[in-house]
């Protein structure tokens, strides 16, 4: 009996020892595992916590009294800037109220690399398309110049495609904190990561209702799940979640954990983009920063956490409101708000601001910009560092360019069935670039007809023959010896080129044997141009091309003068800018500044200019190219509604493979190219295929077409000449005298020999 009792005791002792040993091993194992988890958590929390996509912005827009605007494009821009129409005076940032010719706007805050400004209400009065006055509605002060914030045109997303705006817990209104706690974890500040009471309560509720009504997860558990773990529902994953939550609570204080939670939590979709964090959610749903949320709005946002797409005000406002009101009652029950506050919030309607789905704007420009950025930033940096990249793009000009191009190409296809193609990637193509010639700002870039079909950028990557669009550079070279009134030969001539004979032809027959230089360029006469080139010297023309930074090498052959070699369209546009900028060539500018997420300027680009030709030479070229528009191959611009002074040049290549028009004023330059990628014929000259697109574009941009002309520089003089001899006119003898301009160094000194 005693022996039995002793062996029982020994057995019990052994069981006890093994149990204790087992427990110790489990505890040590758990501790080691939690220590390992803490390393993972620490690594993630101390390094960059989130990938913040970098954002690309357009240029800001300046408005001033007396300015003419395209109202349709202007209102579209306001819509893209997330301004919303209201039917009363604007009370909040982002609201606009239109009443006849008066527009009241409550401006958003302005944030650019070098300035920040709080939003304020302003009244703009229009008369037709012209701004009459701009006045602050809060102070009644006249505003001489108003800056509208830059427009976000693209985000560099990583794979996650998430949007967020980080906030610190100090920025978050206290009732948003109450709302989140009431909605998700009211005992957050009492438990240590896992809340057994919460679990039991949830269990009880779910059993009572016969289904899952309540989760027992704490905020910390939710954070562990979203931040570190995969979403599968297994016991193993749940256990890991418990341990991770407890580890986080040991490592960090409650406010730090809550802050991460507020910036991490998912709040729904904006198209294909996920909205994360209360900072982004407050903008997405209410168009304001988190600090500006009312109690009702804050509780609405908190209510979304449980199931954002189910409770979204954009999907079901009534369900959203019910969820909001449930949480309001909870907050009141916890005595975190007063009865009056609760009742006021309960009575408030759910008023979300609406949104524009994310879409990439100016895609060819973005690609061009992105091509420059890898010098400084890798794709991973762009997708994660939350940089702000400010560009020169004017979104209204961009929209006008894309529309003019698409409509112009469609018109050509409709008019000529030979231009129609079934396969989208074989269709008639075109490209447009718009620049401010003095500053080099790229205002718009459409590198093709449809980016979704072809991402090949025909402005920056294509190599096409410019045809007659190159002739201005031949004539510029000739200004060293010749003048606008010099006579050039229009007689057919044979030239020897590398042992072979070459005889240029005119596209259309021209009766005269001799043409004045001005007329020869205006009518794009081939024979006269080659005559000029051979007299000036082909090597000189090659040097001119090099001076103007055409990068593709050119050979000194006679066909050079007719543009029978390739150029990159961007380089052609830049070269023409030199004429429009009084002889100074700007550097084409697309990126103005890069700013990090703290607002520190990392990169800044300023205008760089270089004098290539004298102001006098530029002025004469502008005058000659104006004759192209008034009397020459581009004269159809007038009947297309272009009534302001313009200089320009058409271009057509052999077989009509390329059609060009480059046109400019002191304020704006645009180049249009039309052609097929495979070199098929367009069956139309530049004046027919490209010029109409240019005209439609320019008519949509009254802001840039002031009607001014270039200033005559001191080294240009005016004389009266005989139109037949090109020499100084003899008074009362020459039958057709006319005014002509000359460089001072080249003024004719001889009088007309024909009528002397």
């Amino acid at each position: 009996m005693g022996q039995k009792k002793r062996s029982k005791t020994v057995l019990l002792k052994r069981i006890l020892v093994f149990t204790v040993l087992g427990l110790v091993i489990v505890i040590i194992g758990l501790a080691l595992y939690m220590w390992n988890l803490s390393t993972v958590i620490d690594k993630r929390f101390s390094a960059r916590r989130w990938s913040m996509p970098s954002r690309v912005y357009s240029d800001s827009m300046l408005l001033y009294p007396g300015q003419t605007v395209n109202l349709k494009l202007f209102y579209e821009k306001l819509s893209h800037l997330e301004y919303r129409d209201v039917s009363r005076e604007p009370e909040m940032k982002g609201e606009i109220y239109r009443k006849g010719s008066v527009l009241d706007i409550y401006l958003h805050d302005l944030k650019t690399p070098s300035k920040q400004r709080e939003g304020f209400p302003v009244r703009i009065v229009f008369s037709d398309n012209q701004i009459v006055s701009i006045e602050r509605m809060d102070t009644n002060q006249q505003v001489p110049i108003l800056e509208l914030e830059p427009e976000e045109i693209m985000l560099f997303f990583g794979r996650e495609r998430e949007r967020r705006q980080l906030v610190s817990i100090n920025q978050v209104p206290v009732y948003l904190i109450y709302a989140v706690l009431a909605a998700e974890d009211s005992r957050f500040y009492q438990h240590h990561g896992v809340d057994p009471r919460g679990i039991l309560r949830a269990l009880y509720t779910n059993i009572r209702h016969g289904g899952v009504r309540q989760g027992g997860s704490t905020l910390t558990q939710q954070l562990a799940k979203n931040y570190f773990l995969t979403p599968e529902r297994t016991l193993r994953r749940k256990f890991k979640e418990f341990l991770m939550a407890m580890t986080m609570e040991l490592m960090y204080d409650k406010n730090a954990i809550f802050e991460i939670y507020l910036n991490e939590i998912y709040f729904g979709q904006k198209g294909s983009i996920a909205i994360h964090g209360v900072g982004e959610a407050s903008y997405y749903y209410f168009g304001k920063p988190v600090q500006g949320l009312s109690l009702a709005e804050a509780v609405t946002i908190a209510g979304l956490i449980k199931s954002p797409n189910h409770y979204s005000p954009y999907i079901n406002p009534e369900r959203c409101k019910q969820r909001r009101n449930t949480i309001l009652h909870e907050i009141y029950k916890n005595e975190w708000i007063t009865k009056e506050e609760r009742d006021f919030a309960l009575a408030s309607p759910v008023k979300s601001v609406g949104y524009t789905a994310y879409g990439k704007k100016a895609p060819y420009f973005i690609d061009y910009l992105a091509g420059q950025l890898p010098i400084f930033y890798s794709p991973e940096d762009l997708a994660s560092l939350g940089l702000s990249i400010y560009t020169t793009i004017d979104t209204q000009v961009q929209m006008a360019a894309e529309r003019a191009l698409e409509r112009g190409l469609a018109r050509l296809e409709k008019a000529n069935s030979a231009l129609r193609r079934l396969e989208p990637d074989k269709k008639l193509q075109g490209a447009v670039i718009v620049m401010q010639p003095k500053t080099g700002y790229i205002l718009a870039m459409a590198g093709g007809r449809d980016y979704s079909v072809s991402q090949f950028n025909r402005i920056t990557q294509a190599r096409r023959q410019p045809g007659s669009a190159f002739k201005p550079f031949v004539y510029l070279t000739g200004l060293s010896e010749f003048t606008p009134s010099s006579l050039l030969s229009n007689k057919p001539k044979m030239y020897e080129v590398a042992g072979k004979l070459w005889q240029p032809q005119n596209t259309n027959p021209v009766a005269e044997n001799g043409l004045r230089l001005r007329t020869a360029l205006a009518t794009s006469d081939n024979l006269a141009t080659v005559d000029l080139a051979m007299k000036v010297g082909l090597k000189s023309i090659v040097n001119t091309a090099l001076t103007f930074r055409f990068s593709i090498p050119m050979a000194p052959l006679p066909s050079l003068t007719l543009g029978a070699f390739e150029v990159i369209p961007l380089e052609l546009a830049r070269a023409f800018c030199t004429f429009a900028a009084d002889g100074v060539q700007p550097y084409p500018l697309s990126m103005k500044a890069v700013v990090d997420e703290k607002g520190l300027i990392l990169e800044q680009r300023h205008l760089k200019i270089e004098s290539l030709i004298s102001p006098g030479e530029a002025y004469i070229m502008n005058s000659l190219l104006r004759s192209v528009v008034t009397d020459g191959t581009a004269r159809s611009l007038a009947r297309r509604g272009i009534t302001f002074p313009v200089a320009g040049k058409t271009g057509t290549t052999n077989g009509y493979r390329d059609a060009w028009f480059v046109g400019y004023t002191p304020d704006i330059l645009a180049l249009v190219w039309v052609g097929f990628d495979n070199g098929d014929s367009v069956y139309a000259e530049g004046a027919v295929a490209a010029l109409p697109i240019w005209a439609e574009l320019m008519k949509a941009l009254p802001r840039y077409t002031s009607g001014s002309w270039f200033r005559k520089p001191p080294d240009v003089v005016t004389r009266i000449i005989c139109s037949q001899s090109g020499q100084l006119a003899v008074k009362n003898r020459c039958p057709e005298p006319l005014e002509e301009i000359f460089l001072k160094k080249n003024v004719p000194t001889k009088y007309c020999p024909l009528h002397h």
Partner: protein
Amino acid sequence: MLIFWIAVSGCAVFIPSPEDTPTMRIEEQLSPGKQAEPREIASLQLTKQGRMLLENGKVDEAITVLEQALNIHPSNGRNYYYLSEAWLMKNNSLQAKEWNHQAEMYLSDDKYWLKKVLDQKAKIRKQFK
């Protein structure tokens, strides 16, 4: 405390917003007898701000504002003058010369400004001899 104040004030750059309207100096008023275009008036507002920024030593910010002014009104000769000043302050003789050359062209009719431009030209020559 002083160092902290200097550091913080350096970060909080005051850049006048276009909506601010600093007082015009005599040389910033339009040339007598000249009919002002709206964009010229607007551009001159920004020129003023650029001038103020230069006087405060905020060169990069000044260049940004003056470039905005140029975009509105490319014929505003005073912009070129101040851009030249800005590049002088950045010790870039090439750009200072280019902008001065442009200023000379656009301000050749205005005696007061032409003198300033020629003085600036001499200053550039002297600084980069």
